[in-house]
């Protein structure tokens, strides 16, 4: 199965997926988050009939529209890239993975596309009530589409409700509800959407703060900030809670990922969470170098609490998960590779026996396969250390996300407090910080996806399908060409988008 494997090609395919996903994620969280905020603005306008609120609503809608278009543009490649660059994956898990994508199209994309047009062009064409309904439907549709793609992504991290069918050589769905309502999926959805709401709030705050610093559109800016900061505060607190729940889920089903987040090589009881530390990039799981270079601070017991809801509990480290730990009954990648290779051999033998019409032999091989199939993916690894994801990138992304995520509620509280005191305009330091909060939010959001996806390596489907098998049979040169093609295209479109957005912000609501 892994004959002619071109590792360079696999890495380029990963790079292309990361590139397109990260570009897409520049625009998506803003769509998800600001759509709710605009719906609130629009509601206030309809309830009060105030022209000021109408101008405000139209202004943010305008910016939403610019962002939405490029979000759609970068999104279409994502769906088809599963086929173009990960065709073996598409075949092996398409029976499960394809369904959420199709459901996303049927129940969400059309809702979004249809009501988007009404939201933008319906001001004088439909009734006020229906127009407002359409604005809410855009928010619902956008977030519904997030549900299904996140269900699909959660399944890659925690593949429930499926079984491998040795006759068709693929994973098949056994229980749709287990896939759709997996706790991993629920956490992923709540975390992604609440953090996106926060980002939407920062978008409004950044632009409004800039207006306040310039003394322009003061009333609109202050009104925008109050609604955005209120929603942002609720979202940021919710994000911390569901983020904690996500970490617990990860500890249960992807312990290697959690260990990489924390640079935890040796398992510990009463394990501490890193509050500060510089990860040693050169360290390998098999050597004795220290995990951190220089000074580092751990908060005792917090990682154990996060992982197992108990201060004194044992959190396995990367070494335990690679080489095993009998004391804590942990099977390492070394042992799992042996079992995985047995599964692969049994599967091949089963298929040979089936081809030869030897049903008795096939039955024996099938039983052997079933015994070890939970370790199937490990059978395709070449060495146990491959089971470790890139530690430094996972660690840094995780801690940037945590640091910023902790800071965000304080910023919202600051804005609300000074708005309440009616002194916001005088707090230049806060407004200065406010203008960059959108960038900070974007960094945290992108870091979150790096944590989720880099931390999952080497798996495309956790424990079952490594990326080396999931690939399409392409040359590295082909993928390099499309990588740079998309890099250039998306960068140019991003530059155009930012330029248009800046101009529109500069023009401000009067002209809209």
């Amino acid at each position, binding site marked *: 199965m892994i004959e002619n494997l071109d590792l360079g090609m696999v890495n380029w395919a990963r790079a292309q997926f990361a590139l397109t996903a990260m570009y897409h994620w520049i625009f998506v969280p803003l769509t998800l988050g600001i759509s709710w905020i605009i719906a609130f603005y629009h509601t206030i306008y309809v309830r009060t009939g105030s022209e000021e609120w109408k101008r405000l609503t139209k202004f943010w809608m305008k910016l939403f529209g610019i962002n939405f278009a490029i979000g759609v543009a970068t999104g279409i490649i994502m769906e*088809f890239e599963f086929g173009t660059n990960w065709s*073996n994956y598409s075949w092996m898990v398409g029976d499960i993975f*394809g369904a959420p994508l199709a459901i996303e199209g049927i129940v969400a994309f059309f809702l979004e596309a249809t009501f988007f047009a009404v939201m933008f*062009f319906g001001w004088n064409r439909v009734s006020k009530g229906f127009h407002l309904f359409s604005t809410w439907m855009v928010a619902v549709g956008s977030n519904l589409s997030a549900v299904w793609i996140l269900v699909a992504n959660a399944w890659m991290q925690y593949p429930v409700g499926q079984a491998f069918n040795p006759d068709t050589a693929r994973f098949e769905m056994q229980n749709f509800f287990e896939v759709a309502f997996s706790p991993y999926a629920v956490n992923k959805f709540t975390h992604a959407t609440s953090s996106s709401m926060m980002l939407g709030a920062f978008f409004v705050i950044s632009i409004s703060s800039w207006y306040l610093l310039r003394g322009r559109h003061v009333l609109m800016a202050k009104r925008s900030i109050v609604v955005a900061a209120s929603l942002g505060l609720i979202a940021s607190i919710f994000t911390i809670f569901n983020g904690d729940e996500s970490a617990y889920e990860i500890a249960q089903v992807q312990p290697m990922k959690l260990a990489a987040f924390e640079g935890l090589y040796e398992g510990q009881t009463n394990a501490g969470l890193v509050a500060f530390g510089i990860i040693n990039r050169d360290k390998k799981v098999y050597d004795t170098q220290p995990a951190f270079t220089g000074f580092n601070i751990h908060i005792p017991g917090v990682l154990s609490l996060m992982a197992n809801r108990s201060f004194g509990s044992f959190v396995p480290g990367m070494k335990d998960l690679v080489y095993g730990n009998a004391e804590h009954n942990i099977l390492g990648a070394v042992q799992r590779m042996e079992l995985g290779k047995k599964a692969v051999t049994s599967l091949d033998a089963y298929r040979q026996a089936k081809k030869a019409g030897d049903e008795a032999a096939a039955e024996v091989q099938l039983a052997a396969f079933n015994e070890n199939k939970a370790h199937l993916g490990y059978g395709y690894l070449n060495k146990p250390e491959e089971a470790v994801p890139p530690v430094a990138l996972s660690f840094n992304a995780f801690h940037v996300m945590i640091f910023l995520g902790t800071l965000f509620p304080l910023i919202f509280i600051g804005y609300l407090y000074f708005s309440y005191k009616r002194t916001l305009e005088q707090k230049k330091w806060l407004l200065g910080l406010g203008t960059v909060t959108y960038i900070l939010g974007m960094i945290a959001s992108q870091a979150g996806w790096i944590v989720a996806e880099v931390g999952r390596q080497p798996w495309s489907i956790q424990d079952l399908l490594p990326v080396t098998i999931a690939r399409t049979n392409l040359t590295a040169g082909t993928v390099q060409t499309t990588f740079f093609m998309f890099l250039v295209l998306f960068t140019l479109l991003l530059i155009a988008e930012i330029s248009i957005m800046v101009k*529109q912000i500069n023009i401000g609501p009067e002209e*809209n």
Partner: protein
Amino acid sequence: MIERLDYATLQHLWWLLCSVVGALFLAMTFVQGGQSLLWQMAKNQTEKDLIINSLGRKWELTFTTLVLFGGALFASFPKFYSTSFGGAYWVWVLILFTFIVQAVSYEFRRKPWNIFGSLVYEGFLFLNGVVGILLIGAAVGTFYTGSNFQLNDSNFVTWTHPLRGLEAALSPSISSIFNIAMGLFLVFNARTLGAMYLINNLELGEVPEMETRLRSACWQNLLLSLPFCLLIVGSLLFMRGYGIVDAKGTIEIVSFKYLRNLLANPWLLGLLVVGLGLLIVGAWKTAKTSETRGIWLGGIGTVLIGLTVLLLPAYNSTAFYPSRVDLQSSLTIYNASSSPYTLKVMTYVALAIPFVLAYIAYVWRLMNREKIRIEDTGDKAAY
């Protein structure tokens, strides 16, 4: 009731559903057709803005239909998804490229500081309208003429031609002529539909000269599409196809396969004839009378033609994605589909489709009560 459906029925049902979505997409390519007509039909900025603002309200529906077509194929026929998208890499990447640039063009075209200027975004729309549709047509043509791939025991694809799908249109062969004819038919059909749609959607009393140009373009593009249509239909009557010849699913070349399929399913022949008839009547009425509702006839006609084009190579024990280099790697609705469980789950989900269609129809009935006027293009929310 869905629980009682057998596997083969589910496979036929899902190919039908995918074909319906695909056929609806072809009808919705009036957006792409309109884009490709932009420079030809609009002689000044006002006319351009009218066309862009009319198409701009619908482009996302067409785009979403294409995305749903992909998603539905992934969910119901994952082996096709993996084989075609992974194999015919360049064809799909280029198609996607044209849709990526389309998606930003409406929003960015007239905005100040858009970096590249209006002309570039209009060029993107033209590219999507011509090259995107041409390549989609060529890809559909391979449902009949076959592709160059092999599947191994694990059903992993190896493409045996270095052009990775582009050979469907670029290799010097009779198959390429058929594939290109399919592409050109779709391009000219989209332009015919585009002209019909604009006549229906715009308040043309304000731009009478453009109305004359649109009505004339509708007829010209229909006439241009017909030779390609005739070439395709003529070829289908005589060409050999890829049939399943036994219960094990063995594929063999069968002479007059598509003629046999038409005779075995005369309703497909009916769909094709009625579809072509509706399209021609719609275009004729639009071009030769003051009728503005020709798009409905043309659109329904295109759906029926699209259904025939997509169902003919799949039903009646036929390989819908044949391999020219290894017959037994060819894909059929039986060997390429999802499991019965997944198809059943998806069938329950598909029950939502009528509701989706109903709200889309309701919303657009509301929105289209008034035609697009010049004053609409001056609105700050306009494109």
